């Protein structure tokens, strides 16, 4: 399980994230709701080691992984599909995906098997595997980004706004893929603007505002909450 305790991250004098507590139990899909700039991306960046926390503690299966460099966090089983995707635009789709398994590059057979799994999840990528990642549509690039994170065989998958800027039909495909990934037993922490669709596939959720957790609950609790309905579900 993932246990984040009292996490604080400051850029300059202002805290982007303050005293945040989040847990993800084994096999859970947990969603983070919040407006732009609420601190969700900062939480993700800190979990995957791109940003160092100012205070707090991050534990994965009881092991302290606080402040671990990003390339070490992957080895602990944390894969981050970041905001903006961060693909390698001139490399082929296949190479982008294979690089996702960089930490286990010596096991060629496992790499190929996982590549096959990603192609099963996103069949369109099989046809595009030799195209440069930068030449794909936004939705397909998002699939590459999710697939690349999966190639690391993560225990915890961090998905930051995977449906941002995608057409409604593609959003559905991506969320369906996330649901299937979750079914395989991977812990998923998902940030989503599309709150209703995210809650539908989630077990639990947190509402983040101004860098703090202001509310938490199960899917049904959040769906019924007037505060969530008003701010995020547009009821």
């Amino acid at each position, binding site marked *: 399980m993932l246990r984040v305790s009292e996490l604080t991250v400051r850029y300059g004098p202002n805290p982007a994230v303050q005293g945040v507590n989040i847990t993800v139990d084994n096999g859970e899909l947990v969603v983070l709701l919040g407006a732009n700039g609420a601190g969700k991306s900062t939480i993700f960046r800190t979990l995957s080691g791109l940003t160092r926390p100012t205070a707090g503690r991050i534990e994965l299966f009881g092991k302290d992984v606080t402040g671990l460099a990003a390339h070490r966090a992957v*080895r602990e089983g944390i894969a981050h599909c970041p905001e903006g995707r961060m693909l*390698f635009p001139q490399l082929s789709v296949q190479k982008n995906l294979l690089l996702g398994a960089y930490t286990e590059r010596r096991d060629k057979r496992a790499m190929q098997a996982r590549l096959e799994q990603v192609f099963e999840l996103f069949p369109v990528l099989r046809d595009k595997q030799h195209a440069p990642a930068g030449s794909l549509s936004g939705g397909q690039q998002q699939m590459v980004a999710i697939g690349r994170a999966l190639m690391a065989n993560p225990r915890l998958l961090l998905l930051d706004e995977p449906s941002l800027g995608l057409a409604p039909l593609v959003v559905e495909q991506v969320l369906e893929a996330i649901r299937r990934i979750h079914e395989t037993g991977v812990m998923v922490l998902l940030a989503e603007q599309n709150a209703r669709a995210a809650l539908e596939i989630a077990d639990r959720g947190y509402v983040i505002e101004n860098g703090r957790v202001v509310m938490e609950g199960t899917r049904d609790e959040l769906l019924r909450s007037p505060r969530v309905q008003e701010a995020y579900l547009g009821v």
Partner: protein
Amino acid sequence: MDEWGVAMTLLLQEILNGIVVGSIYSLVALGLTLVYGVMEIPNFAHGHLYMLGAYIAFFLLTSAHFSYWPALLGAVVVLVVVGLLVERLVFNPLRKAPQVNAMIASVGVMLFLEALAQAIWGPNYLQMPTPYGNVLHIGALSVTQQQLLVVVAAIVMMVLLNLFLKRTMIGAAIEAVAQHREGALLVGIPSGRIAMLTFAIASGLAALAAVLVTPINLLFPAMGTMVIMKAFVIIVLGGMGSIPGAILGGYILALAESIGGAYISTNYQDLIAFAVLVLILSIRPAGLFARRA
């Protein structure tokens, strides 16, 4: 031979010379563009690593009595180690500082290496011996064995480098870091180690280029200065960080210099290099192979 035959021979001879010089330009520019791509540092010391490679080979040939190929290999190995040291001792400590700090540090390394070479080997021009001094005649064209060696070795090296970058995971990791540093970290690529490796490869390539071409030219402590100027012109016109850009840019520049030099005036050779730069940049401001944002 009639007038037309003479003119054609002259042109072909200049193209041949351009290809020889272009092979060297390309090797040097490749290292510069690799380092720029991965570390985002314009390494002003790159030409002086080239110079150091030539002096190491000169030392091995004349003082340690190595033959040519062991001396070439020795110079490459020494420069790989020097490259690793420079990256660890100079650039790695500056990786979180503003980019201009690393730029200034590279100028520092450049001045240091030039002073070092001058202190050890003196300011005079030296001649590097080679067993490949014979002149070959192909029709009316003449070429030295050494010139032929330059072209063949450079092309072999470019092919090997390309295979390494395109066919191995470590090579892919180098390209990945160059295309998205944070993305590379996220998949578990240790960018620090990739930077070391890249710097070592670039230094080795510079040494190789220097040992290949110096028997044709002369050896002196400031020999890196003109080379680095040309290499910067090449990677700017080829597109900063682009590998095909560096290779093609090297040959374009050298051919423009040799052909322009023959038909206009050799006095303007260096001017032609910069005229080509201005011309290409006015058509393609980001270079021939601009990296997508």
